[in-house]
């Protein structure tokens, strides 16, 4: 299951000290163990990564400071630029569909009956699987020679398509795999939002004989507008970090058509051992995610104000 960068809004409302609490350095002992790990495992690597991005190492591990040379090289590197384009393409293939399908599922399945509960269970189930199981399953679907789609095509008298070997179809195939894996989260986020819509709004609409469509567009959708944008931004951040699916299904091929930024970083770092170059690419990705996270923060602080 992928991780989400979360942006807390409420947390910034630090409570005003009530005056009677004594400042006592010993109290800091409660937070010290975490802060130690936080500094060692997050702050230091972050700073080191930034420094690394301005260096060029050789095979013996001695780094040389090269300023912004890695970044200049990145923006002239056709493979990196292709990886950036691939990442955006993948986000475009997955996020709108995940958002709308998640909303559609939530609207249909937001009911008490048993069958709705069973279907909700099914749609969220794949979310708990790891990326390696998911890709293994889907490779056996896409495999032209004996995969599920291949067998189906043959049974229908058609020629099986090698989805993962086709430059135009490989990324959509990875997008389908990802949607299958990730559809549960947007669905449950929308379900949670739908249950927050005040019941009396619907009762009032029923009294006015409002049609189902009017109820949906005038009451339900405006009430969950914020969740809608929140889901989009959460999914953008998540899907921006695409890595395991192409790393396991296509290795970024054919012809770099499925290599996203994170796979580029991985390969620069652990295939070519160009740590400085990989770190520079990671900084670019970090900047992009930060922008998305800032949008998310603005959205969730808007929720506080409302």
């Amino acid at each position: 299951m992928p991780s989400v960068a979360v942006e807390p809004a409420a947390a910034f409302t630090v409570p005003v000290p009530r005056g009677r609490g004594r400042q006592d350095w010993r109290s800091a002992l409660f937070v010290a163990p975490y802060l130690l790990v936080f500094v060692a495992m997050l702050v230091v690597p972050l700073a080191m990564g930034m420094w690394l991005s301005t260096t060029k190492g050789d095979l013996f591990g001695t780094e040389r400071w090269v300023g912004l040379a890695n970044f200049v090289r990145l923006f002239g590197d056709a493979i990196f630029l292709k990886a950036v384009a691939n990442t955006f393409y993948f986000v475009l293939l997955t996020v709108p569909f995940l958002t709308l399908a998640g909303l559609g599922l939530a609207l249909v399945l937001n009911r008490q009956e048993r069958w709705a509960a069973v279907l909700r269970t099914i749609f969220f189930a794949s979310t708990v699987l790891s990326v390696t199981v998911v890709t293994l399953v889907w490779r056996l679907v896409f495999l032209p020679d004996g995969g599920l789609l291949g067998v189906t095509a043959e049974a229908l008298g058609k020629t099986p398509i090698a989805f993962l070997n086709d430059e135009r179809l490989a990324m959509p195939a990875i997008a389908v795999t990802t949607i299958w894996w990730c559809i549960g989260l947007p669905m449950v986020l929308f379900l949670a939002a739908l249950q927050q819509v005040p019941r009396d709004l619907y009762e009032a609409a029923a009294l006015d004989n409002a049609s189902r469509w009017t109820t949906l567009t005038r009451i339900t959708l405006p009430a969950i507008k914020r969740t809608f944008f929140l889901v989009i931004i959460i999914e953008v951040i998540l899907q921006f970090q695409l890595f395991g699916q192409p790393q396991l299904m296509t290795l970024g091929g054919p012809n770099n058509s499925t290599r996203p930024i994170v796979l580029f970083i991985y390969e620069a770092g652990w295939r070519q051992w160009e740590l400085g170059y990989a770190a520079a690419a990671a900084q670019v990705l970090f900047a992009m995610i930060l922008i998305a996270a800032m949008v998310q923060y603005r959205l969730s602080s808007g929720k506080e104000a409302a």
Partner: protein
Amino acid sequence: MTRSRLATGLVILAAVLMLVPLLWVLALSLKDNAELMTDTASVFNGRFTLENYRNLFGNGDVFRWIANSLIVSFGMTAGVLMLASLAGYGFARLEFPGRNLLFVVVLLGLAVPEQAVIIARHQMFSWLGMHNSYPALILPGLSAPFGVFLMTQYFRAIPRDIDEAALLDGASRFTIFWKLLLPLTIPAQATLGIFTFLSAWNDYWWPLISATNKDMFTLTVGIASTQMNFAQTEGLGFLMAQAVFAGAPMLIVYLFFQKYIVQAVAGAAGR
């Protein structure tokens, strides 16, 4: 009414499409490997065998990987719960110099994606010679600020009268934390625990680069390693049995604890 029938029908169809790949893999895992080599469509002829699962149990690797995944996931969960509870109490209730500033810095850490730190982390563990060890697999996960954020929020929501009464009775800060407040945070502990366990169990990139020794693979990395030379494999059924064996426990746990898992995942994403 017809429109809603149509929508329901579409959703049921989608649910079937969600299940088909899993059933396909399950069926393949129950087939003889030689038969699959000639034609995978032979799954429809109805001859099934448990041979692949028997071979799986005879092969120690998968069990070793499961044990590693259990150790890493439980270790990380216990560590996160402990550190986040202590820090959450500290940030929510105690006064010490620089508290608010430190808290904001920790929260800023939420915006840092794994990719921005993983290269340097890998180098640090290389220098320390710590790769291929449980601490290397567990420690990075303990730094995630989400737990601290969640626990701080939760401690803040507990009425202060509880600790103030105990303070008047002469209880120490730690006693108040341990005996009085911690038991009240069990719902938050459950959310955080489930979320951490699931993330740790399914984590891929860090164990992939840190655990390079086959004996230290987690299940996720182990399953990845077996599918690397997938095209040449003669044991498609065996591979599928591994996929089932790796996926089924998670799905079964999910069926039993669905409510809590959905809450934990949605809560972590939506905050």
